[in-house]
């Protein structure tokens, strides 16, 4: 990306602020003073010497009685009831540790699954590297993140690919009332599971996976523009199901097994789940959500 910086010359203007694409919301940087105007300093700010400053890079937001900075970057910060996609990083006797992109690994206890798991038998159900959809259940002051796999739409993910995007972009991927995600599913025929933590699981044919990840790239790059759904729609229609002529797909972060079908089931019989590990997967009950 070309920078407008000419070496050898000092910047003339003090602030050099380019016009903001964020509407009336201002971009603030760590250490910048915020005119709090009687509002209390909220998340992303700090107060010292009677003045309020931003502590993170983000957008200034005044929500009386708070003034806060909504971060534009950074790791996923878990919120209760968020649905997230994680990968197993460690297996213990009674729980698994999941990487959900948060500052800490999240323990998934064996009682938080739809399976009948005996102590010490955890590895028969999930192994390191497996992908799961879970929900944030509890957040403790220590930073511990409790998750559960009991609930609709939660469970283990089989096959497919996980693409990572910034968690801040997830609302654009879903769209208003799910309009964007519906469009994507309808026009690609792929199965898509969106985690609030910025991880998107895509299942189906390799070509569908390719097209969805391309769409995700478009959304991430143009998130601040309006009319994104139309743009995605026209992209998907111009690159009809065969003969993709879009640009190269971004590299996939996690190519879990290439097996096409997936089992996303809370009501998964445990024996089958275990057996399915090494056997060729049964044909999927195809079709999107």
């Amino acid at each position, binding site marked *: 990306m070309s920078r407008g910086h000419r070496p*050898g010359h000092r910047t003339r203007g003090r602030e050099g602020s380019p016009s903001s694409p964020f509407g009336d919301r201002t971009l603030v940087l760590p250490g910048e003073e915020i005119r709090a105007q009687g509002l209390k300093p909220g998340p992303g700010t700090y107060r010292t010497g009677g003045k309020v400053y931003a502590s993170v890079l983000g957008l200034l937001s005044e929500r009386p009685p708070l003034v806060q900075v909504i971060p534009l*970057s950074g790791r996923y910060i878990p919120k209760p009831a968020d649905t997230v996609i994680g990968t197993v990083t460690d297996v213990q006797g009674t729980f698994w540790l999941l990487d959900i992109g948060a500052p800490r690994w999240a323990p998934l206890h064996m009682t938080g699954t739809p399976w009948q798991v005996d102590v010490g038998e955890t590895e028969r159900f999930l192994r390191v590297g497996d992908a799961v959809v879970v929900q944030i259940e509890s957040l403790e002051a220590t930073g511990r993140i409790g998750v559960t796999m009991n609930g609709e739409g939660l469970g283990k993910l089989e096959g497919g690919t996980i693409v990572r995007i910034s968690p801040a972009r997830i609302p654009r991927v879903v769209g208003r009332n799910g309009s964007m995600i519906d469009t994507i599913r309808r026009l690609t025929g792929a199965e898509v599971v969106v985690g609030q933590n910025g991880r998107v699981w895509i299942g189906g044919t390799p070509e569908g996976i390719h097209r969805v990840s391309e769409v995700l790239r478009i959304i991430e790059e143009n998130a601040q523009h309006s009319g994104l759904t139309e743009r995605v729609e026209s992209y998907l229609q111009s690159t009809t199901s065969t003969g993709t002529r879009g640009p190269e797909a971004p590299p996939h972060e996690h190519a879990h097994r290439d097996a096409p079908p997936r089992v996303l089931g809370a009501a998964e019989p445990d024996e089958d789940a275990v057996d399915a590990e090494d056997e060729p997967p049964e044909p999927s009950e195809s079709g999107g959500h």
Partner: protein
Amino acid sequence: MGSVGAKEVPVLLSPEGLRIDGRKLDELRPIRIQVGALHNADGSAFVEWGANKVMAAVYGPREVHPRHLQQNNKAVIQCKYNMAAFAVDERKRPGLDRRSQEISKVIGEAFESVVFAEEYPRTSIDIYIEVLQANAGTRCAGLVAASMALADAGIPMVDLLPAVAVGKIAGKIALDLKKEEDNFGDADLPMALVPQSGRLVLIQMEGHMTEEELSQALELGVQGCREIYEKMKQALRERYATGPIGGSA
């Protein structure tokens, strides 16, 4: 003035008061900062400062490795400064040495005083600084790059951390020494400033200065830091006003 033994010393200051590369005494070398240069890191920045080229990557807050370093009330900040074997004229012996350990330590401690580590207990914020090409002032360039990478990673902190070295060449206090000036000069004084409070969170010195020269040098350094601060803010604005946004992509 400023005679250094019998060695052949280049003329560091012309009669007109210009330096070896034509700069004035209070002038910085050109700086170019690119935020978000790496994809796999949570935050990153590439800094070209004169002939220095430095890459910084920040990971975290994330699980602490090794586990015993974990702190129950705050994040630990682990900084690793490294210079590539090809960064200097003569091949640098790769790997850890006393110099890089020292620099890692002082940079890490500088960031400990600005990062709100209490917000992420039992985690680690890992800062990696790789010097790809060196021409004096790499710890300052590394600090600037790491500071940009921390902001890019969304880490909460008091302020960005501009840094610069002030030195003494041909008996005069000069801003931002380049290699020849550092090698043949009389003193070198790197520092890092918290612009919001005016506090210095890193000061080291090599060589000799009088008390008077020292206060002059500190003043010049703070002024230089403020100039760099503006460039840092501009680079972050450029990055976040356009283009894709996101740590790990």
